């Protein structure tokens, strides 16, 4: 089956207020699915539901046909990894130790033999090898985000859920992280990423899901979904979608004069 993770008719209420309404979404292997939408649209909540953090009040989320909520923490952790929006750490562990934590679910299994190899590879892929000996709380925001991404990669799961993986990163590292996400998808993983940069989403996504007010407004190929009409409505701000030599650019309207140029 190509879509191991399926949400159907998912509804979530938080603090008495509805946050997600009747969300249907398939997460497919070999594909990078990008979630976009305004602040508070419910992107993190949806990711929480997909990852099993949050049990939806209505609808179901299934992983290979079994309800995510029924799986034990270890079982789940060998199948899906999550990069949360915020990544804190209570004590001064070194970067390499934090990345090693991603291997916790494989302890006592044959895969444990790969620990060192995988950790080294994950550090390299997130470009934090040179920080391996540094103490996590002393890192900059972007360095922490990359360390956390390395931890997620080290988990070696079929499903990878990333909540705003590029939020704190410089241009080079944004491209690096997106390249990693693409490589994972190309290698047969299913990757879901929440992004705010619509141009970035258009450039890298296989499919884009536009979320607004807790509802899925559109899902599909970037060109089909990222239209000026839909985006302007959803973001409540006029947006332009420009095709520049085959690349899709999403630009906000600024002052009228500027738009004329």
């Amino acid at each position, binding site marked *: *089956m190509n879509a*191991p993770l399926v949400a159907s008719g998912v509804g979530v209420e938080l603090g008495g207020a509805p946050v997600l309404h009747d969300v249907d979404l398939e997460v497919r*292997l070999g594909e990078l699915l990008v979630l976009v939408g305004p602040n508070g649209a419910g992107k993190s909540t949806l990711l929480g539901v997909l*990852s099993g*953090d949050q049990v939806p009040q209505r609808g179901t989320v299934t*992983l*290979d*046909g*079994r309800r995510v909520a029924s799986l*034990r*923490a*270890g079982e*789940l*952790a*060998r*199948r899906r*990894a*999550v990069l*949360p929006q915020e*990544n*804190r*750490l*209570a*004590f*001064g*562990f*070194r970067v390499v*130790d*934090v990345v090693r*934590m*991603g291997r*916790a*679910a494989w*302890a006592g299994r044959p*895969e444990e033999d*790969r620990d060192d*190899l*995988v950790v*080294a*590879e*994950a550090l*390299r892929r997130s470009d934090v*090898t040179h920080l391996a*000996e540094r103490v996590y*709380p*002393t890192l900059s925001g972007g360095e922490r985000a990359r360390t956390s991404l390395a*931890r997620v*990669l*080290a*988990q*070696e*799961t*079929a*499903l990878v859920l990333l909540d705003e993986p590029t939020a704190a990163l410089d241009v080079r590292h944004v491209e690096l992280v997106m390249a990693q996400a693409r*490589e*994972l998808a190309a*290698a*047969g*993983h*299913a990757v879901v990423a929440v992004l705010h940069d619509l141009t970035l989403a258009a450039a890298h996504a296989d499919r884009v899901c536009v979320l607004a007010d807790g509802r899925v407004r559109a899902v599909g190929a970037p060109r089909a979904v990222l239209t000026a009409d839909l985006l302007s409505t959803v973001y409540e701000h006029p947006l332009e979608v420009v095709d520049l030599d085959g690349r899709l650019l999403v630009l906000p309207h600024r002052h009228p004069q500027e738009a004329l140029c």
Partner: protein
Amino acid sequence: MTAVAGRHRLPEAVPTGDVPPPALPPVRRGRAGLLLAALGVGVVVSTLVSAGQGQLDVPADQVLGSVLHRLGVDVLPLPTHPQGDNTLWQVRFPRVALAVLVGAALATAGALMQGLFGNPLAEPGVVGVSVGAALAAAFVIVFQVTLLGAWTVPAFAFAGGLVTTLAVYALSRADGRTEVVTLVLTGIAVNAVCSAGLALMLFLGDTAAREEIVFWQLGSLNGTRWAHVAVVAPCVGIGLAGALALSRRLDVLALGDRAARHVGVDVERVRVAAIVLVALLTAAAVSFAGIIAFVGLVVPHLVRMVVGPGHRVLVPASALGGALLLLWADLFARTAVAYADLPIGMLTSLVGGPFFFWLLRRTRRTAGGWA
């Protein structure tokens, strides 16, 4: 279930000639081994030295001679003083053994609690668990409960410790973590309530019970007998073994509840286990030695400064360090002033109080530790 199981390795690095895979930084085994060895030797040597000191001095070689003699090896001199051997085996050794056990229990409980709360300021004394255990034990004294013989006081102390640990945890936890301010204020509240309970026990008790409770609020190892050691030792043994078994999962708890669950740790189970172990260790320490605060705060902190926060080293090193600290604190307590036995809890608080304050300021300043 097999569609997503086990077939999704990290894509191999793109082969770019003969570039070897990047080497991982070395695990700091050497440093950890050195610390554990040094602490272990320190505990053994300090035990022999401490046992020889007191109103009747027995040189360390004669102390060792006496121990070896009982083990059937006669190579070192026996105590020359006629009462020497008797004093060692009736008075000193049980007391020194209890110091080792209580020190190990308190420091391990501190390390466990800090891991559980994800907060370097959590400690049984600071957050009120010790007083909670003491309150339950005072109840036994005042109402002369004898349900379980020698185990009555520890059993009640365990129950009291468990209830207070659960209460502190439930009250100070919000959104999967514990802020420093919340933890400290919760500690104040719990300490206040339990101290009020202790005051009530003092009020209700007869003179003998009062004396015992006061003595015990101050914390002391005076009057330790082998029977006490026999009760405390298995509790500490179980507590330490449990803490070691939890250590890798405690490391992962530093990520916070949610991320710990993401990497496969059953957070609820670890939490319950850690709370029970903290209560067991605190009860073991409090039952016969009374309230000795701050050991669990100071020792794990110093260990972390040397070998980092990994619990696989932190737990055993804290146990040894706590034993070492209490050995010397007790030696000081009974030899600093001639013919007087100072309360050891007073000494640890005298040093631990300012240390706590320093740690509080430091935690607030630095990024680590969720200030």
